[in-house]
């Protein structure tokens, strides 16, 4: 489903975030990316979503080369991807409901169906009954869940999560990972980055360890 072919990424200024990486992610796989900050985890996620372009090699998503894709085609790739951001990127000028609804507006969903899906997504992440609140009133963990609800509301085939458990205590982090596992069980391909490997170990999935833009054993 996702293929990296000798991918390099050098940021303006000369920092090499990724050095000649090749790997493949199967459809329906749950993959962890591990490594310290600056190791290149976020860059991999950004390349998959077309947020950054590689400076070398090819990034294929469903057989399409995202790296060399026309700017106007990138939105259509992203609609198949759910993004969970480290900094949540929640909009505080609107309610919890309207935050989750945004992807559906972009896709042009109708009122009734959209409402049903938003409420279902909020229920799934455990935010039922909070849809009318302003996100400012939510706790950090709840904001993370809101971000997850927004990422899954349009039922994407791929879910990319950048440090979803950072800044959360262990129990809360486990809850979030359980949530991801339930998405995995219904066939979603997941790529999750984290610097804390102890959490991943419990799940016994494939882990790609990164250091300075390269894989370590």
């Amino acid at each position, binding site marked *: 489903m996702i293929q990296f072919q000798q991918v390099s990424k050098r940021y303006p200024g000369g920092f090499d975030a990724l050095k000649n990486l090749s790997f493949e992610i199967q459809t329906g796989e749950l993959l962890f990316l591990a490594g310290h900050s600056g190791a290149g985890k976020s860059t991999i996620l950004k390349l998959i*979503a*077309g*947020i*950054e*372009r590689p400076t070398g090699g090819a990034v294929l998503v469903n057989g399409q080369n995202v790296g060399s894709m026309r*700017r*106007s085609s*990138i*939105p*259509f*790739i*992203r*609609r198949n*991807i759910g*993004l969970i*951001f480290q900094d949540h*990127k929640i*909009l505080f*000028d609107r309610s919890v409901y309207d935050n989750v609804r*945004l*992807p559906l*507006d*972009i*896709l*042009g969903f*109708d009122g009734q169906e959209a409402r049903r899906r938003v409420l279902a997504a909020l229920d799934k992440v455990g935010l039922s009954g909070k849809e009318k609140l302003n996100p400012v009133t939510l706790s950090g963990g709840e904001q993370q869940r809101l971000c997850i609800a*927004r990422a899954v509301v349009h039922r994407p085939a791929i879910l990319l999560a950048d440090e979803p458990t950072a800044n959360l205590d262990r129990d809360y982090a486990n809850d979030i990972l359980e949530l991801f596992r339930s998405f995995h069980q219904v066939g979603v391909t997941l790529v999750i980055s984290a610097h804390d490997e102890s959490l991943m170990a419990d799940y016994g999935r494939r882990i790609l360890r990164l250091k300075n833009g390269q894989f370590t054993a």
Partner: protein
Amino acid sequence: MKNWFRQHWLAFKRTLGGMLRQPLTSLLNLLVIAVAAAFPLALWLVISSLSGVAGRMPVESQITVFLRSSATEGEIKALRELDGKDARIARHRFVSRDEALKEMQQSTGMGDLLAGLPDNPLPDAIIFTAKSNQAETLETLQKELAVKAGVDEAQLDSAWARRLERLLALGRAVFDAIAVLLALALVLITGNTIRMQILTRQDEIEVSKLIGASDAFIRRPFIHFAIAQGLGGGLLACGIVALALWRLNPAVRELATAYGQQFALTTPGLVSIALVCAATTLLCLFGAWLAVWQHLRKLL
């Protein structure tokens, strides 16, 4: 298709709602556009009103040739015979100095003054009427007549009408320049307003892009805002001009009456209102499009 309309309708409602939530800001924005549009509109209405007057004026194609007092019978005869020889002349009328004096005494009420003069100061004159009323033809004819033997002076009677015509042409040129400048101003004003809006909605734009919004989706609310601004500004401009003319016209009418003319400045009609609104809307759209394009092209 239905979905497309629905999306636009929803976005438009949101835009209007946003404008109503900040009534003062919206009104100021509208006023800026209205004032910029009102100026060329007013100028245009004045020019076209005056053009109407100029068009109603009979364009005289008469040339009055005043003869020297020393002109001989033969010279006068040669001049009068031009009517027939010269293809440009339609007819002529000879006005002797005695007739001219009589006409003047009757028409100007200066009879007493003229009667007091020791002798008649007026020259003999021949009034030629040309077939054409083209300015150039008339001018050449006038110049030719002026240098004929026995002629003191040849006057083109329609000169002042053509001066007005030229003044109006100048007015139109000024209008063109001002219209171009203010059109540019409208584009810049809307572009800047939209740029400010983009800055306040940067988070929303960024998140929408990341979630898979197309450029069109992001552009939509700004485009709607620009349409609302352009339409509103155009209508307001027409209102301002109509109000100004309504205040001005009594004075203009009085002035015209003093010159024996029936004249008033035309207020904007439906066609001009439609044209003004179309122009402001298109210019605002262009400004908004530029601003959004400028912002989006930096985002991947």
